[in-house]
């Protein structure tokens, strides 16, 4: 016992020092994690406090039911549905492109493509997501819209359709990449089980792999929706910034995000009602994406892989 005492105390000292370093690292990591939490809380605080000031002037009921959005006019109206309609219509167009195409691409890459092709195709696809959205915006305005006008000459220069289509292309890699990961995560034993029953590749992909990857697919779609709802530049450039209560993609309209850009570009005095509308609009957007994220979470729970 006594002979090993010196050794033991040295070891103890070393361990104590080690524990300090450990605690220091833990604290740094904790603070780093805290920073992001506080940023979120800070954003929510600003959004809510400015919105509260806004709703002191404008009743919530008017905000939700008014069918005009003219916050900067003398006869000011604050009907968020006007902007919401633009956001929902453009998002719908985008998702109508991104979800079917993204899913198809994912199924192809995960279940059909030879290994080498997949390794080449995936980074290329992800490159689409790296293009600045302003580039997409002008691509929609100067290329896609004229192209659409050849088919449908009455189409206005600014419209939700062109912006939505291009936005859909931008979102494809988000959807396809996560969907593919989800499908690749389906264990080989399930596929083998299906093949062993005499199923073809296509049957295996659609009847076994896709249902097994459903929760991952749901996350991919939710992410796509969040991207579409929050997208700003493409819509600001190509959809026009006129508030317009419409669900017709052939018309120009402003979205929530486009309005925020528009107002933020002008010089409105702090604390004015016009200034505060940005925050009310921002809060609406925040609640919308939050709702989708919660929905995504619920779906993930519901369809959790149990293989």
């Amino acid at each position: 016992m006594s002979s090993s005492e010196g050794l033991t105390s040295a070891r103890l000292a070393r361990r104590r020092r080690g524990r300090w370093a450990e605690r220091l690292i833990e604290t740094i990591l904790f603070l780093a994690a805290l920073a992001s939490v506080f940023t979120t809380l800070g954003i929510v605080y600003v959004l809510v406090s400015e919105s509260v000031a806004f709703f002191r002037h404008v009743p919530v009921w008017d905000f939700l039911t008014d069918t005009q959005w003219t916050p900067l006019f003398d006869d000011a109206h604050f009907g968020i549905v006007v902007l919401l309609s633009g956001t929902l219509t453009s998002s719908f167009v985008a998702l109508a492109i991104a979800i079917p195409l993204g899913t198809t691409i994912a199924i192809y890459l995960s279940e059909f493509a030879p290994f080498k092709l997949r390794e080449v195709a995936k980074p290329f696809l992800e490159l689409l997501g790296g293009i600045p959205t302003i580039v997409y915006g002008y691509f929609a305005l100067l290329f896609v819209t004229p192209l659409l006008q050849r088919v449908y000459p009455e189409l206005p220069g600014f419209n939700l359709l062109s912006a939505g289509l291009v936005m859909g292309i931008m979102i494809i890699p988000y959807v396809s990449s996560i969907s593919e990961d989800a499908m690749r995560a389906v264990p080989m034993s399930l596929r083998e089980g299906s093949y062993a029953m005499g199923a073809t590749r296509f049957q295996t992909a659609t009847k076994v792999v896709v249902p097994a990857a459903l929760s991952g697919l749901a996350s991919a779609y939710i992410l796509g929706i969040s991207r579409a709802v929050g997208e700003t530049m493409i819509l600001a450039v190509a959809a026009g910034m006129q508030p317009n209560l419409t669900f017709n993609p052939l018309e120009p309209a402003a979205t929530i995000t486009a309005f925020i850009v528009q107002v933020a570009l002008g010089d409105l005095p702090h604390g004015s009602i016009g200034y505060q509308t940005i925050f009310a609009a921002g809060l609406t957007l925040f609640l919308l994406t939050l709702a989708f994220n919660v929905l995504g979470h619920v779906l993930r729970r519901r369809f959790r892989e149990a293989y």
Partner: protein
Amino acid sequence: MAAMTGPDTNLAAKAEVQNLNFYYGEYHALKNLNMVLHEKNVTALIGPSGCGKSTFLRCFNRMHDLYPGNRYEGNILLHPENTNLLSREVDPIEVRMRISMVFQKPNPFPKSIYENVAYGLRVRGERRKRYVDEKVEQALRGAALWDEVTDRLDDLAFNLSGGQQQRLCIARALATDPEILLFDEPTSALDPIATASIEELITDLKGRLTILIVTHNMQQAARVSDFTAYMYLGEIIEFGVTDAIFIKPKMKQTEDYITGRFG
């Protein structure tokens, strides 16, 4: 004749393996195998891990076709019409339509119990509800699962216990009336009680179809099979009537393995 126990060795051959060689890329995994599957009997493949018994089993339903770089040589003739299962002209899907497989770990699909069993029929384009209903019930009865699931056919298959899931996989394989049923260590992921029920099931099934089972459990091979092949390093060392293999093996190596001195 009356005194004779064990299988009737005069039974017709259901499949005949002739000079089968198999390669994973460059690796020569199965070396010149020759064997017969007797119709409506159980044949067991035993041998130490890595001896190629699962690889051999998976030749029968061409599972190796799913991965690039695999190559078969030789024949597996399926009787009565003598088609070579391994021939390039034979579509592996056709083969799998006639030869079903049950895997090591239960692998039910993310579907209801009913749809799991109906899967093989659906894949074959079967739409008649009455017919599918009948087949599903028949298969579940055949797999001794019907009584346990009859009132929850629409439940997700994942909610079943491990042993029930494996019996569900057997029902799935039975629903299409296969001629040969392949079992790849079907009880290795199950507890002793579930194992006993699967073994009992295999015994019940023989006489209705031809069974080939891979097992690393020698007692299991002795209990359920009529014929046994002992494999080592990709070769069949000894093949014969199970009782003979276990009581009086011809090869010293087989005896060492069976008595537990090796492997």
